């Protein structure tokens, strides 16, 4: 199967990745080859097989809703690239 450049651009847009023209062409070729190899999965009849999302027995995990000490705002903000007045600073969401 062969991906088009438009499909590559669509995926990159969904994933919010800015790619150069060179990267787009390389990923177009490589992802096409990988998906080609993966098409062998289509040969298996799985109409009666349930999907596996987790190998553990499904169970619900509940606990009391109790207040506990957590990390301080200062500790958490220390990792952010730009902060202001105890908050994370970002550029405008809209132009």
């Amino acid at each position: 199967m062969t991906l088009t450049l438009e499909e590559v651009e669509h995926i990159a847009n969904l994933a919010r990745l800015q790619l150069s023209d060179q990267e787009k062409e390389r990923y177009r070729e490589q992802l096409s080859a990988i998906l080609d190899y993966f098409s062998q999965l289509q040969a298996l009849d799985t109409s009666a097989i349930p999907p596996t999302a987790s190998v553990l027995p499904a169970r619900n995990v509940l606990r009391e809703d109790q207040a506990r000490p957590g990390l301080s705002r200062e500790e958490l903000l220390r990792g952010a690239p730009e902060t202001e007045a105890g908050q994370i600073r970002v550029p405008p969401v809209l132009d």
Partner: protein
Amino acid sequence: MTELTDLSLTQAVQALRQGEITSRLLCQAYLERISRLDAGLHAFLAVAPESALAQAEAADRRLQAWRENPAGPLPALLGIPVAVKDVLCVAGMPCTCGSRILEGFYPPYHATAVERLLAAGAVILGKTNTDEFAMGSSTENSAYGVTHNPWDPSRVPGGSSGGSAAAVAARLALAALGTDTGGSVRQPASFCGVTGIKPTYGRVSRYGLVAFGSSLDVVGVLGRDAQDVARIFSQIAGYDPRDATTMDLPVPEIDLEAVDLTGLRVGVPEEYFISGMQSDVEEAVRWAVQALESLGARAVPVSLPHTRYALPVYYLVAPAEASANLARYDGIRYGPRVPAKTLEEVFRRTRGEKFGPEVKRRIMLGTYALSAGYYDAFYGQAQKVRTLIKQDFDQAFAVVDLIAAPVAPTTAFKIGEHGDDPLSMYLEDVFTLPANLAGVPGLSFPVGFDRQGLPVGMQLMGAHFREELLFRAAFAYQQITDWHTRAPEIAAA
């Protein structure tokens, strides 16, 4: 006189208790080796001598007090120097995940596995190199440069826990934490001639582990032999309320006294001996199975018929999960930000510039597999075939106790050998992926050397939560062989 770094973990624990050595001297010996040899190996991304020596001195004070008044038990790893793969959070040390997108990030808390190591008295020497976000089989995908295999510096150490494996093999740490999403503990253990456990999915808490493929990720241990690895495993395993996927099951005391394997049924799957694999790898693994038989085990042919599908299933499921997990790296809360006029542009540019080629490739692959119109054909079908792979193991473990197989089709390959051919690199993982998809535990340990003097590993796989059986069989094997005691000669860079 033997050097301090020649002592195994088990021997060092004993020597520390008896006051024959101090943790400070032991840790200094390791730090000295790191400063002398790691320039040529690049196993570490960060070394923390000051905090390590402070932890060592605290351990020495505790040991001294205990010897004067030996009341109560001592923590199991008191004074033992270890390393941690740089995808697990250690407060006070950087956590880069081998990526530029987390350059300069210092996590504000310890991962549970790290917290438990520290509670057991271990000393943390530093953080080890990894493929970016653990995506790779060679450490060549680290943004900070490749790690060299201590047995041959022109070769890779395997990956993604290649820094941890190289550090243990080169005696730059007594043991190390790693992680295994598709073979990332077992394959580097095999390439570097050390022992490594990939525990059952849900056995070790992943709180504080940077997420890659959440239905597959497991925290594991690399060490010199089965006994050393078991000692650390039993400290870090067990239920953690901060990770809802950990199972509330007791962690067994691992008794490694008995070396008799009488009655143990060891399955040998035909699908793991494929044409094109290196002949001396196959020979070494078949010899090791015979050695297990000489200890009383019985080898039984078994079939895991869907093995060949594990590769496409894994490389759809893991990238799909990764594409969701890595959405959080956007230049807002941690790591560097590439400045731009709008928020959207900050996301695109930061991710486009700071993620490396393999991570971007997998985000693209995973996003595609999950996208409208392709979900059923790719991700949905992969989840169904995953069920078939899991059923293969269920059926095999109805008739055998363990499965023995090669870890990888080859020994350590040359740096750069797979070039820009991602599919040929993915094929290196063909024997390790099934255990992750089925969630079963796997233990990799050295069973010989190839004609070029490179280590060969074998893996034992068991039913869920049967790690103890894997350790027992490998320990018994290591009582009658000495591959695990061999150490590479390393020239200072």
